[in-house]
């Protein structure tokens, strides 16, 4: 390491921290992202110049082709995928990028190990431990993110994939990986170091996949957050391997960020991380207890009736859920809300932390549909206002509006913070059919006396409603 490169790293680390600080307000967030990009250049370009500049002749050509080619290929794939992806598919895209970061950390540690052993240099204990940690964490992050991607993209079932002895197997694999890492640390140059190393990589990759497949699709916000944290930790351990402070600092920031989000997601579901990871939530529809007397009749309403209720309201809260993303209905929601606002209805949006498939998913979709962000409220800000609200419009949300979480002990979601929709004067629920939601739990809100159900595709229903308002 040379002094100018180190100074660049130092400035980059400061800028990364400032960028996270400015990410806390929508006014400065875009600038924060540019600062972060600049900091990245400040870390990458001097590394490139210094490392490649130190080589000559054939080695220089090799380096330019390998590094330059890698950057060119990666940039094209990154840009094309980033501009093509739909906002509704953002959770799986972020999961995919995240997995690639984990894979890169795994490969960096792998090359370090292979090079040092091929050259018979060996690795000291402080060098070896972070290499093997990078392999394990990077490997789990890679295949775990791929499993999350496959679930979100519906390449494999979104339901938990469970089999007997699953958790014992995962524990055994983890212990085997740690054991192999320990053995390789003791004697990195033994005769069988290469097969042992390959086994370590293979076990880490297998473990990531197996840990994520028993987790249901609705719990993906937790998984995506956790994998985000792992990718940060993998960067930190890579920083230990390479004795590079900027990697250690940046990896710690990302690791902390992922852990905080994971914690927020778990709290928003009133479940522990262990329950999310090992609980197999949503595996099969459970016969949940329904509060005595709550099992009333479903009141179905037509589009016209629902419009009349909304038109005559003075305030409305929209509660969006994953169903809105599936139906791509965010623009239709916005159009309807705009027409109602013109008639003097005050429209706000209530966003549950776990609505959608990643933290903040609904906010992004509504922002895409030009909903001003000062109309978006999180649960703590708006939950006491439901009782003063004339009408609540539920678009594709289910568990987050289920009063069972408040008043049915024994329900699988009991204790989870939910919106007080039942306190509003009227509730309109847009829903495809009466099938229970992802977790397979009966929703008491649907049979609540103030609730009217409008069945059909949310996007089409909303368009019909807007059509009536335009015609009137």
């Amino acid at each position, binding site marked *: 390491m040379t002094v100018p490169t180190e100074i660049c790293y130092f400035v980059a680390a400061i800028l990364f921290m400032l960028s996270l600080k400015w990410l806390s307000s929508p006014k400065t967030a875009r600038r924060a992202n540019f600062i972060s990009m600049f900091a990245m250049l400040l870390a990458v370009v001097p590394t490139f110049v210094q490392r490649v500049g130190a080589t000559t002749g054939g080695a220089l050509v090799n380096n330019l082709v390998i590094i330059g080619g890698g950057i060119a290929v990666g940039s094209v794939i990154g840009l094309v995928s980033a501009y093509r992806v739909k906002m509704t598919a953002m959770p799986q895209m972020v999961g995919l990028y995240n997995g690639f970061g984990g*894979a890169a950390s795994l490969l960096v540690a792998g090359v370090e190990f292979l090079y040092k052993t091929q050259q018979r240099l060996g690795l000291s204990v402080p060098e070896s431990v972070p290499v093997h940690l990078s392999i394990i964490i990077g490997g789990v992050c890679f295949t775990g993110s791929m499993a999350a991607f496959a679930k979100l993209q519906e390449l494999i079932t979104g339901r938990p994939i469970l089999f007997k002895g699953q958790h014992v197997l995962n524990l055994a694999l983890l212990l085997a990986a740690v054991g192999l890492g320990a053995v390789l640390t003791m004697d990195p140059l033994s005769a069988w170091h290469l097969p042992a190393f390959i086994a370590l990589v293979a076990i880490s990759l297998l473990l990531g996949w197996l840990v994520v497949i028993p987790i249901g699709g609705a719990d993906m916000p937790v998984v995506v957050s956790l994998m985000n944290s792992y990718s940060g930790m993998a960067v930190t351990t890579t920083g230990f391997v390479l004795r590079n402070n900027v990697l250690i600092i940046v990896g710690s920031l990302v690791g902390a960020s992922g852990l905080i989000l994971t914690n927020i997601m778990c709290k928003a579901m009133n479940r522990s991380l262990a329950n999310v990871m090992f609980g197999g939530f949503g595996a099969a529809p459970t016969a949940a207890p329904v509060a005595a007397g709550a099992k009333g009749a479903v009141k179905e309403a037509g589009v016209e009736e629902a419009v009349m209720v909304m038109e005559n309201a003075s305030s409305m809260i929209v509660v969006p859920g994953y169903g809105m993303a599936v139906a791509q209905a965010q623009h239709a929601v916005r159009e309807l809300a705009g027409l109602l606002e013109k008639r003097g209805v005050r429209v706000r949006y209530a966003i549950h932390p776990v609505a959608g498939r990643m933290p903040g998913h609904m906010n992004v979709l509504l922002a895409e549909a030009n909903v001003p962000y000062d109309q978006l409220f999180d649960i703590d800000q708006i939950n006491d206002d439901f009782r003063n609200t004339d009408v609540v419009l539920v678009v594709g949300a289910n568990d987050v509006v289920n009063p069972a979480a408040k008043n049915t002990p024994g329900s699988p979601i009991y204790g989870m913070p939910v919106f007080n929709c039942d306190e509003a004067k009227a509730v309109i629920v847009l829903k495809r059919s009466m099938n229970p939601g992802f977790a397979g739990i009966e929703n008491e809100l649907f049979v609540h006396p103030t609730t009217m159900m409008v069945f059909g595709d949310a996007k089409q229903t909303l368009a019909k409603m807007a059509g009536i308002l335009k015609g009137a």
Partner: protein
Amino acid sequence: MPPEMYWLLVFYVFMLAVAAGVELIAKVPPLLHTPLMSGSNAISGITLVGAIGAAVYASWDANGLLAFAAVALGTINVVGGYAVTDRMLKMFKKKP
């Protein structure tokens, strides 16, 4: 510097960075949690710095191929992550 001192110093750096991260990120509102996630995800692509270092060891052998893959994957993570974050942040407006 004796190696023990080096590792001690590195752990100080690590500890302080975690503390700073917790303080900074706890202040990000739920509104921006997706951009936070994709933005921090892009930042974690800084492992690219390590990939460039690893590529310098490599020639046209298995290591070269692994290093090439590491650089390419790290770059996808960085470039793609920043690009989607900017796409999202561009959409957040106060007035329609």
